[in-house]
Structure formats: C-alpha cells, structure tokens
C-alpha cells in the first residue's frame, strides 16, 4: 500500500497554465483508499478544473495505474478523449504517474504527492515499522526497531534530548530508546544495552540494483518460460 495525498489545487493549476484541455486519470488501488485518486476524487477534480476554465475531455479510473499493461488496455476506448487533451493529470502515487507517462505520448502531470510512510507498508493500526535496513538489529533492542522508533535512527542509545519520555521533535512522539529500555527491562534483557553496534552499512539500506531494474511481477516482463529440453539440445 502506498499512501498519496492530493497536491494543492493551485499547484495543479500552475502545471496546466499553458494547457486548455485536460484528461483526468485516477487509480482504484492505493490512491482510491488514500482518498486521493479514486472515482470520487477524479469526479471532484474534473469539476474543479472545469470551474477553473479548463476543458476536461474525459476521465477514467483504472485499477491499477502501476501496471502499464492495465493502463494501456484501460484507456483503449478513450483514445479520442486523450487525443483531444493537451495534458493528462494523474491522481495517484509516483509509480502510477511514471507508468502513465511511459505509456502515453502526452504531457503527464502528477496530481498527488506520495507520502513517506517511514517503513510502514500499510494503513493498519499499530506502531511497528520496518526500515528494510538489510541488517536487522532487533535482537539487541528487545524487538523494537531503533531505526524507525528513534527520530534520529540512532543505533547506540538515546540522544539525551527526550523530556518526560517524549522525543524532542514532538510531545506526541515517544522516545524510541526509552521504549527499548522499558521493553528490555520487562524481559530481563537489560544487558543488551551494552552491545556495541557497528555503524550501519548503508549499502544494504539502498535498494539493490536488480531491485531497481526489474518489476518482479510486471506483466510487461513475464519471467522467461523454461525452454523444452529438445530445443536446448538443438542449440
């Protein structure tokens, strides 16, 4: 799940300054549940654009815009509306906007900002977050991640900025290291506080190059089916 929120309308209008007509595209996946680009928001956006003097040539909500094959098949019957539009406004996450921009030979503008979830992968209730650091430290910290629970992602302990157990960044945020301390104490594991953790390996925190290059489940790049034995033999 990716969380997105609509850009301020003024910013969207500024993108469309030199365009008279626009096609509005939404997504029935994460953008729909984010409340930023589902059917309702696409309709509202179309009305606002029309009220601002733009000609809306058409609109469509597709599930899912992160899949180029679905973008193309979903827009097959809207070719005329798309042709008529000077630009396409896409209400979804950054992945969806990039897929639409790659699939259409048109100026494509983002109508949303994608929000950093700080390691969360969904909107379920709960405070656990994974940083995907590739060097899990939870053994040392009583099962609470210091990278996501501590505002500074400190691995060596509290910074000293906490006041009454709350982080200096906000009275609404618990000091992650105090949570870790209390958990370790509760479980009789306070000696883990003495563990010296080496500086993080940021190579492992960066996405691996192959992760950046291949959409694992992309329909556009289906995994190569194994070739029949005789064909291999023939080569």
């Amino acid at each position, binding site marked *: 799940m990716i969380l997105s929120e609509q850009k301020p309308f003024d910013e969207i209008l500024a993108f469309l300054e030199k365009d008279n007509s626009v096609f509005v595209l939404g997504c029935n996946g994460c953008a729909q549940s984010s409340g930023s680009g589902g059917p309702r928001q696409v309709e509202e956006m179309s009305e606002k654009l029309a009220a601002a003097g733009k000609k809306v040539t058409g609109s469509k909500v597709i599930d899912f815009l992160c899949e180029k094959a679905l973008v193309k098949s979903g827009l097959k019957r809207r070719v005329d509306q798309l042709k008529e539009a000077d630009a396409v406004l896409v209400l979804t996450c950054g992945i969806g906007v990039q897929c639409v921009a790659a699939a259409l030979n048109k100026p494509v503008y983002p109508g949303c900002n994608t929000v950093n979830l700080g390691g969360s992968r969904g909107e379920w209730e709960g405070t656990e977050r994974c940083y995907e650091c590739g060097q899990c430290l939870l053994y040392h910290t009583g099962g609470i991640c210091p990278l996501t629970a501590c505002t500074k992602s400190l691995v060596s*302990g509290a910074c000293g900025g906490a006041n009454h157990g709350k982080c200096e960044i906000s009275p609404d945020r618990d000091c992650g*290291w105090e949570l870790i301390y209390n958990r370790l104490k509760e479980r009789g594991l306070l000696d883990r506080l003495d563990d010296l953790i080496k*500086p993080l390996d940021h190579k492992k925190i960066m996405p691996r190059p192959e992760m950046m290059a291949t959409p694992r489940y992309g329909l556009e790049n289906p995994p190569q089916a194994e070739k029949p034995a005789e064909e291999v033999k023939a080569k």
Partner: protein
Amino acid sequence: MSLQSKLESGQFAVSCEFGPLKGTDTHEIEENLNILRGKVDAANVTDQQSSVMRLCSLVTAALCVKGGLEPIFQMTCRDRNRIALQSDLLGAWVMGIKNVLALTGDLPALGDHPEAKGVFDLDSVTLLMAIKQLNDGFDLAGNELKGKPAFFPGAVVKVDSNTEAAYELQISKLKKKVAAGAKFIQTQAVYDPNSFEKFMKRVEKFNVPIMAGIIPLKNAGMARYMNANVAGVHVPDELIEKMAAAVKEDREKVGIQIAADLIKAMKPMCQGVHIMAIGWEKKVPAIMAEAGL
C-alpha cells in the same frame, strides 16, 4: 599544561565554551580568546549548536590554536557522513587541534534550516570508534593512514533525567562511550550537588575523568525556561527564588555566586568543571576567582 596532561595526571581542569557567530566576522572570537587565554585549560567550540547554521567549529578551533587557547573541537554527526567526519578529523589534527568532543547532534528540524537533511550516518559512540581507529592509524574501512593523529577524545552525559529509562540510558550510553574510547566527559549543566553525587557514585567504575557542567544563571526567567525546555536541566526552586529576589543591579553578582558555590560543592567529587557561559564569557574569570580556582 594541556587539558590531556592535566586530566591524566589527576589535576582539576577548567573548560568553558563559546559558539562561532553566523557570518564571517571573527571579532567576537578574538575577544573571547583575549578573555579566556591563560585563564581556562581549554575551550569548547560548538558545532552549529541547536542546528543553527554558523561559522564552522573546525576553522574556529584552528583560530583558537593560533591564538594560544587550547580548543575542544565539538563535532556532531548531524551534518556529515563518515567520510566527511574522518576527513575533517584529519584536517583538525593537521591544524594542531588535539581535543575532540564527539556528539550526535540536534535534529535539523529544531534549527534555522528545518528543511535540511539530518545525516546521522554515525552517532556519538560510533564517531568515538572512528576517532580511535584514526588514532590507531586506520580509517573506519580499515585502510592504513599515512601519518596518524593522536586525538584526546571526549564525550558528554546528562546527569539529571526525568524518567528512570532516560537516566539509565544515559549511564549505559556513557559506558559505551568509554568503551569506544572517550577519555574525558563533560556533563550537561548541574544545579544540585546531591544529584551529582548520586550520579558520580553510579559511574565511578567507568574510571574516566568527569567535568561537571555549569551554566551561570542570568535571571529567574532563564532558569524557568531551562526547566521547561532543556532536557536534563533542573534548577531547584530555591535557586530560582534567589535569582528572583535579587534586585536588578545585584542579579549578575548573585548568578556568579551561585555558579561559584556549585563549583565549590562539586569540586571534591569530580575532576573538573565545564563552564557554559552562553554569552557571558567575560564573566568566566570572575566565576573562577569566586570559586577559588
């Protein structure tokens, strides 16, 4: 005598601190050098404290060396990754800077460039590890150096905390800092010699020289502000009342007297004091004289 030789030979040391200004005007640095030279053993040069962008601590510390005042180069992990930190450390040594105070640093969001990226590639403990590694002639990646420094690394600790977890975390982190190579410790401001005594008993076993932090009070409002906003600083009501009761002309005298009394009370328990005058650098010699230092 250098700060290192003084602390290593068991003598009582005095440090103070000042922060460079925003801009290229080094007038105030010159003034501070003239006031403090020959008076204190060393002076901390703060590293863009409170995440407010200022002239860098490295160059200011180098100016102190040139001006005959031994600097304690404060280094935070907020603005530099491990490559830049190590590189600046090598530069500091070449400029004659021997003392380094390793700090994690404040969040950029609290300063005057709240949009800035906080780096925190290392933290106070892993920065101390890096300093130790450089002293041993290698960088953090294990590559050999051509010419190595011999830094005297230090770190900080908070004496007072308002939760058990925060207090214990300070002590466990201090243990880590000493294990990672810290050779001296400066504390956050202390206003209660009893709580300092209790703290010193807990950390005695770490066997590291500790310098008690002193912030002279300028008025009662300042004390109340610190109580409300500065984590780990607690000014007892009694001292606030003393400041509040003083007439305007006497306030400075009372503030200096309180600081001197605290120094006298804590001197037998520790190996030095660290006076953070916050703009009152001129008063440091008076505080020392009043405390009998």
